[in-house]
């Protein structure tokens, strides 16, 4: 169950605008933990609850130390019932709180599906904005960690298809911090997808500096904003969450073969940043969407659809997809056959009908 991931390559732009200062190393998990702690320190109405998030600190330790620091009224364990967690969060959000809940693993959020789709997503609309639901649903998600069944689902399509939800998936340590803080500050409900395989990825960041940057209002908005994670000119890889490091690695490999590939990290699935995506594809004329979920009726499908709708005449080749197969997520010994890989991405790039 251990895991290392490719760190984002040098092409990653500094996305914060923060003054570079003393830099220390932090993991993705640690950044999320800091974002929670800083949010709770800054706003007494922020609460954290779920299964095993109290004394244990969560099975991934994302809530480590929060109960000790903020008391068990503000970070606490619930009975083992996901619809219960979600439904109680709705009520708390109706009554002045900003709950952050953890669904222990992607597939264990499904019992809460009715609460999410029929209430979280619809309550503000139903009440014409009189009841807003400022809550965050944190979901450790997707695979690549050798997890057993039900622990590796990529469930973003279910949420992204549901109007009313903001759906985010960070791919870098800095984004993990800033996006979680932005999610908690958002007046709208956010599904916050944490790529499990990135939890142990590291970056040189000073979390205290990120806090100051965010609290000074100097972190540019990330909800609805994609970013060019690596600039390039020949083709665009569009990706998010767990697939971004893979896309970056593919771009790096392609560069060795002399192809300049741009990589877009969506960060925000809903709202979608058409502008950044289309600007890139119009420049490069070729695109491959990379995502880990089964491809059929997926976020990748949507990206392909909108890119061809909006950039049709700039396209030299069809927009292709490298996604998971349309099968249940495989067992640990088979998952590497399933996951989008550098090779598979390079194959797709090769398929983009180059004529030189």
């Amino acid at each position, binding site marked *: 169950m251990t895991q290392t991931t490719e760190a984002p390559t040098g092409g990653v732009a500094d996305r914060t605008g923060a003054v570079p200062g003393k830099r220390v190393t932090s993991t993705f998990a640690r950044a999320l933990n800091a974002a929670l702690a800083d949010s709770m320190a800054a706003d007494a109405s922020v*609460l954290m609850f779920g299964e095993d998030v109290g004394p244990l600190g969560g099975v991934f330790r994302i809530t480590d130390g929060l109960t000790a620091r903020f008391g*068990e*009224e503000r970070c*606490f364990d*619930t*009975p083992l*019932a996901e*619809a*219960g967690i*979600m*439904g*109680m*969060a*709705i*009520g*708390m*959000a*109706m*009554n*002045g*709180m900003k*709950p952050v809940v953890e669904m222990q693993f992607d597939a264990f959020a499904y*019992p809460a599906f*009715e*609460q999410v789709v*029929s*209430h979280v997503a*619809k*309550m*503000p*609309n*139903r*009440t*014409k*904005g*009189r*009841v*807003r639901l400022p809550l965050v649903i944190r979901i450790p998600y997707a695979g690549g960690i050798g997890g057993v069944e039900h622990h590796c689902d990529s469930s973003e399509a279910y949420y992204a298809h549901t*109007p*009313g939800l*903001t759906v985010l998936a960070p791919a870098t340590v800095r984004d993990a911090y800033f996006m979680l803080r932005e999610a908690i500050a*958002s*007046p*709208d409900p956010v599904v916050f997808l944490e790529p499990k395989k990135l939890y142990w990825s590291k970056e040189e960041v000073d979390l205290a500096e990120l806090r100051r940057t965010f609290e000074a209002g100097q972190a540019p908005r990330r909800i*609805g904003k994609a970013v060019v994670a690596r600039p390039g000119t020949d083709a665009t890889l569009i990706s998010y969450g767990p697939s971004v490091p893979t896309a970056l690695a593919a771009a790096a490999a392609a560069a060795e073969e002399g192809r300049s590939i741009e990589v877009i990290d969506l960060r925000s699935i*809903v*709202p*979608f*940043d*058409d*502008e950044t995506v289309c600007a890139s594809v*119009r420049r490069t004329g070729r695109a491959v969407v990379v995502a880990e979920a089964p491809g059929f009726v997926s976020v990748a499908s949507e990206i392909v659809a909108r890119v061809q*709708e*909006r*950039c*049709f*005449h*700039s396209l030299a080749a069809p927009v292709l997809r490298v996604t998971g197969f349309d099968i249940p997520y495989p067992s640990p010994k088979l998952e590497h056959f399933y996951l989008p890989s550098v090779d598979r991405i390079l194959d797709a790039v090769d398929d983009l009908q180059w004529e030189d």
Partner: protein
Amino acid sequence: MSTATNEGRNGMLGGAPGGGARDGGTTPDSALLPSVEPVQLVDPDGHHHTDERYPLPDGDRLLDAYGRLIAGRRINDQANALVRQGRMAVYPSSHGQEACQVAAAVVLGAEDWLFPTYRDTVAVITRGVDPLQVLTLLRGDWHGGYDPHEHRVATQATPLATQLLHAVGVAHAAKLRGESTVVLAMCGDGATSEGDFHEALNFAAVFHVPVVFFVQNNEFAISVPLRSQSVAPSLAHKAIGYGMPGERVDGNDLAALLAVLGSAVDRARDGGGPTLVEAHTYRMQAHTNADDATRYRSADDVERWVPKDPITRLRTYLRALDLLTVELERALADEADAIAAAIRKGLNTEVTVNPAELFEYVYTEKTTQLREQAEQLREELARDAAGTGTPTSDTKADRP
């Protein structure tokens, strides 16, 4: 009502961890079980029965509640008429259940919250929400018509039992802030079968929050009779499985409802935790106007409940005590008529819906996608209004 003061998960209160399924506590189990017969204070013939646990509410309180009962019946009748006349799409009537409706509303204070279902229109109106705003949903203008915060009444829930969890959340938030809010959450007998019912009761008990769960057992879930829903001795017997007291009450006896629900509300407010109250009543009409109840029950079944009507017995009782005079009765009927007239008038006024609003409240700020879609619709409608044809695009350029 049980006097159990099971402390729930006291850790939340800073006390020593108490309760817990194995710890047992000091209360004998049986204190959590409901009474053998539903609590009844005024029987169908209008006679008072003494119950040592529940004193009869005083005359003024009963008289006030009686007036609301009359209004409630009138509202049900009026709404049914409006559906027949095509002014509303559908109306799930609480005819026969008005005592429950009135009690649910009047036992609460201004700082409390009510969580009603689609059938609880009369409760919502009794709590003070503008009837026309309430009926927005059923008229089809929007999914909810009133501001839940104004009277602390949640939107009427359709997905069964889901609202019980929201009620727990509202109560939990209030408790964390040290407020004295009590939440009364309603559902039907059918809804008790849903998983969310279970999770709500358990969360409420474990977090020891001030919620009164009020089940109107009207013996039917659309066509499905209670015996296909549960074979428990009573629905109130579910309470002990969560470590909270359960109570059963005659749901057509407004006096008993006021006493039992009032006591559960008091207990919740005093930090005594949640209670499950089951009211035994009957759905006198079809599920909604779209339902054909003759397919699954006989007129005889319904007939049997006519003598148990909540209005008759309270009227008899209040008249016998000379609390209810003919003049007062007349005045109450007039008041009810006035409410009905206002509803009629309001529903007969055409409202114009605004399609632009479709995109307004999905997010606090419209996303780029929704801005584009709103603009598309706006253009379509402008074109339709102008009567111009569809502009054709035959350029090879990409759309912006």
